[in-house]
């Protein structure tokens, strides 16, 4: 039975989250490694170590991408299944060179003319993170987390669906799609539609956490662990590159955020622990040059116009549930968890009147996205071997993250390990 004090804590936490808003790690629709995730972070409950350091490393081994209908698809199809190069030329001024190109082509979109099927392999090749935890008293923990990512878009290829029958078809090919990359680079202010590899740090996250155990004298329920956390991110992450396809930011795209979360887990008997975690992140809006739609019919990959805009980010919600088998084999545990992230709709406001805000706001990539992933982690705690008076007690974990569903998201299956050192 949950005591009244625990109830108060839960209510307090939920109320605080209402005001503290959300988000996990980044605003990109990618399941980036999040070192402070409740499913990956070191277990600090049974230790009195004032300092714990954790090192994460993981490698991606397959990509799992989902479109708006939650169907698995290629990474370059998460927003649209094909890209419209004729629509790409619309919405510019009368005497703009892009309009002149459009009028030179003078071809209507019959559903396939000017449409491009783009394929590519987008994945996080490698991710690492460093976390440091400082314990202050019995209930307070301060932590800082710095992730590092290496991501690439590879094997990019384009298939022009335009036929070669009608004059319009031929014009589209000759004037546009036969030299698609060059044309887009020239007209699109340097938009490169080829492959890329990007490496860099993510945002630093600083958290303060209050945690407490409430032992229960029950036949089954032995302990209730409650943790309440809050923090900020510092925009140290690599920004998104608007001149590359799907080159997402590694953090919040130079925007700060605040986050809050609550973890509640229950120890049942001697070998089982179950729990859940809620985390909400609010990202502060930011202004920067972004690619925008200039016509309703445009598709997301080939946006030629880059202009200053203010983006008001949607709320990011993250829910995790887990079950952990503990001490079935001494010093080891196995955790199976599920993590769900949802990022709400973003709103874009243009800083100029040159283009229609009504059009630029109706963009697939501004709409909500979700990720679903399963995390399996095995831990080995060496304290049983080294004794309680050891200067440092390492804990080794191996894990895998397996995305299995989502919406408008590009996810990577990874396998990795964690070394945590408790001093």
């Amino acid at each position, binding site marked *: 039975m949950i005591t009244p004090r625990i109830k108060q804590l839960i209510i307090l936490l939920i109320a605080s989250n209402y005001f503290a808003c959300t988000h996990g790690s980044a605003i990109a629709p990618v399941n980036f490694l999040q070192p402070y995730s409740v499913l990956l972070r070191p277990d600090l409950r049974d230790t009195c170590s004032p300092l714990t350091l954790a090192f994460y490393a993981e490698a991606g081994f397959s990509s799992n991408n989902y479109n708006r209908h939650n169907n698995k698809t290629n990474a370059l199809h998460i927003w649209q299944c094909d890209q419209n190069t004729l629509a790409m030329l619309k919405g510019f001024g009368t005497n703009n060179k892009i309009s002149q*190109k459009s009028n030179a082509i003078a071809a209507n979109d019959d559903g396939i003319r000017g449409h491009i099927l783009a394929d590519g392999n987008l994945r996080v090749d490698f991710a690492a993170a460093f976390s440091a935890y400082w314990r202050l008293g019995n209930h307070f923990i301060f932590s800082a987390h710095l992730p590092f990512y290496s991501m690439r878009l590879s094997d990019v290829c384009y298939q022009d669906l335009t036929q070669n029958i009608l004059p319009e078809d031929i014009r589209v090919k000759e004037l546009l799609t036969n030299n698609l990359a060059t044309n887009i680079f020239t007209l699109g202010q340097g938009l490169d539609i080829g492959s890329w590899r990007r490496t860099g740090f993510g945002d630093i996250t600083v958290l303060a956490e209050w945690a407490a155990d409430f032992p229960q004298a029950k036949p089954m329920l032995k302990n209730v662990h409650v943790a309440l956390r809050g923090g900020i991110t510092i925009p140290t992450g690599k920004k998104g590159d608007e001149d590359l396809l799907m080159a997402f930011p590694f953090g919040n795209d130079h925007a700060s955020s605040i986050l809050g979360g609550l973890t509640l887990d229950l120890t049942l008997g001697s070998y089982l622990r179950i729990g859940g975690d809620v985390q909400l992140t609010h990202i502060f809006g930011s202004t920067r040059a972004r690619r925008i739609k200039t016509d309703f019919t445009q598709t997301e990959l080939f946006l030629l116009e880059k202009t200053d805009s203010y983006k008001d980010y949607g709320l990011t919600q993250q829910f995790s549930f887990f079950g952990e088998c503990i001490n079935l084999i001494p010093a080891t545990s196995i955790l199976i968890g599920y993590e769900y992230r949802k990022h709400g709709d973003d709103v874009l406001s243009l800083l100029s009147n040159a283009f229609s805000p009504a059009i630029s706001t109706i963009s697939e990539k501004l709409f909500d996205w979700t990720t679903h992933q399963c995390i399996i982690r095995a831990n080995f705690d060496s304290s049983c071997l080294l004794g309680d008076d050891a200067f440092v007690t390492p804990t080794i974990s191996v894990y895998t993250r397996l995305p299995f569903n989502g919406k408008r998201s590009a996810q990577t299956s990874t396998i990795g390990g964690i070394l945590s050192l408790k001093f």
Partner: protein
Amino acid sequence: MFFGMTAQEGSDLNAHSLCKLEEHAASPIDYAQKTVTLNGQADTDNPFFNNAIEHLALMEGVNNGLNDTIRPVVVTKNQPHLVHVAGNKGKMLEVLSATINDADLTTPALTSGIIGIAASNQFIFAAAKPNGSNTFGDLGSGIGYVELGVIAAKTEEPTSNTDAQKILIFFRQLDAPTGLSLESTLTRSLPFDRTTPALLLAGQDATNNLTALGQKPVLHWDEKLSRLFIGVSTCSGQDATAGTRSIAVAYPQKGIGLNIAPIAPDSAFNNTTNCPVGVRGACTYASIHKLAVMHTSTALSYLIVLGDIGIPEQTCRSVYALPLVNSPDAATHGTLAAIDAQPEDVFDDKNKFERRLLTHAATTPDQLPSSHDAAVLIGGKTLESGTITTIVSSGDSVYITVADDKTNKNNFSGIFCSRAIFEASGKIKGWTCWQRATIATEPAIGLIANHDTGLFTILSHENSENTDIQQGMRKTEWKQETKEEHHNLASLITTEFATTPGGIVHAQDFPYATKGLAGQSLFIATGVEKVVVAQTGTKNGPYDQPQKFNLQTDALSTISGGQLTTIGAITSCAIATDNNQSWLIVGGSFGATILTSPDNSGWAVKNAADKNFSAIIAGFTFKKFGDYRAVKKIIADDSYLYILTDHQLDRLAINATAFNNGTPDATTITDTSMHKCERFLDIIVSGKCALLATNKHLLRTANGHDVRAAQQADNGWVRVEIPESVGPVISFECITTSALTTDFARGIGSTIHLLNANYATNESQLVRFAVEGLGEHDAITDATICPLADVFKKGSSSSLICFDTFRNVLATDGARYLLGNSGNNKSPCELRILAGVPTVRSGQRLLGKRFKNVLLFFTPTASLNALGTISASGSLFAAGSFGMRIHE
């Protein structure tokens, strides 16, 4: 629409003598029911029941007394001294009647008969014969003046509810000379007889009264001008220095009554004038059969007259357009304007265009419009056969119905149309030749142009005994399954291209006046590696008049295979001739080919007349010539062939040996690199002048240059600034006297419509230019091509119409504005028509949203590639990936 009928003796049709047929209604509404409320008395015998309708007019406008906004005004056979107006009051039909007195100024009496009526939204005008005489024109003849109005009267039992006021309708003849409402025994019509000064041209002899006045006066009220035009056939008096005018202008003036003025002053007429509405000379006839008023899109007004100087029987083939003074403040408002008067634009206090005025009336013979003037004679000439029975003015077009002797082998019956050609100031400078407006060839007695739908309703069966009115009426519509008259042309061509990728890529009509066709007319549709040629008609016997649609089954030639397979989608075609031989030349994505006999010759022009085209080209094959790619347009003009590709313009000389070796001598006149553009979009050529559209600019042949002799090094092109341009010009439409695009800079010149459109910005607009005709020795100057006087804001030219979105095809006939676009992702393929015309006018360009869909159903991704008119039938066609549809 309302129908008034007179049945033959013994027929019971008179029981339904007046009826109304509404759009989409299954059956007409009978206005000749046995009893109605007559002059406020319920269940009274209906004056229309079992009565023949002699005269019918419509009174339009809101009137609180009668609910209908359009009310029939009727004179019946049995009560020729009464004028009736009918309308619904509540749910009941109410008929109001008024007696008409003659114009005896001292002792007015009931007229012996009304022989013509017209109605404004408040008044009715009736041409009345004198009491005791059956001859209109005798003393006492006049114009009756009837008012329909309402007054509010309190009910007998007043209540606190002010709505209880009763609306009383009055319908009465006013005393025309004074405008007062007098007792019926004192009420007079306005004298209109053989002594009326407005009809007389004073001479030296005092006895210059007209010797005769026609018995079929024509009354036409124009609401915009607020003028009543009274036309009547007249014969001048015995005095050779006197004369007659056949039209007078009347206007009601509050508190004064009805006034009558001459259409032009005496001083404007002398013995040498050729004005169709007035003449000096002894016993000379001037005849008027029909009148209408045209309010042009350039905001000027013209009186359209069927009639001429001469006896009535010989003047039914000429229609004239006479400029009118349209300055409401001027005493001469509604009279003939001086032919050299220049329009004056009037702007409001925000500098927005308000109206255009012609203020100078014709006062001297030099200023009087002449029937020989190209600006005056509609259709460019008098018809050679047939009788014009109806004229309808709509937009910038005049439609006529022609009845001809059915036994005549070259029967010329049908509906024809002529369009105004404007000079830069907005005045009419000429007219297109008469062209068929619909495929109907039966003698028509009535024509209604529905501007909301673009459809025509044609009333025929003048002598039909059929009591079903709808069987005597034909409504045009858009069809794929064409009726017998089109010999299934649309479905035949659609079938030919059903399996061809992209369907019909290009479709073009070649009227009978096309050089090299010897009086034949062709319709050519092209697609991927395929050409279908339909011979749609031949010249109308000995007459140089529009021929009749006459598609023979074996006159459809489908040509494919051979070297056509090497040029891909065929985008353009032309008939080229050296006057001895003619060739069909087509161009496509990967080249150009010419249709020749095995010995490389074309068909002999002299043998082409009266033969089936399929027989003429039997054994001919297409042979590729030159090394062209992406051919956009081919034009044959004079002895030159112009080939426009995406990137260059070539000129080839046409002669018997030019294409013998497959590599004719071609001169590249210009290319895209010279104009820093990416692509050429369209071109028109006429003699020495060419207009070339690129994706950036509109170019014309430079001053002093001649496209027939141009060399690339000359760089003889200059930019033409498009008013308020939204992008490039994507197509041209030329309104020329001959209906041939290649005559746009010949003769009197032309009006050119430019479809100025921008794919990228999703905009389009219709811009007009006036082109001056160039003689062989005339040089091109800055004045050769000028924007037409379409003005929105003071100080700058504008487009005529801004469309709401991008459109890629446009067709107009002066009255109807059709435009369409191919399916484009989320915007479907559609064909639209401007509804609510005629209000297309300078200064009212924001009409885009008034275009409404023509009821044609295309797949969303269909391409609409061609829109135009089949000259032999006058029917509009639309062609594209869906095949072909015809409006018939």
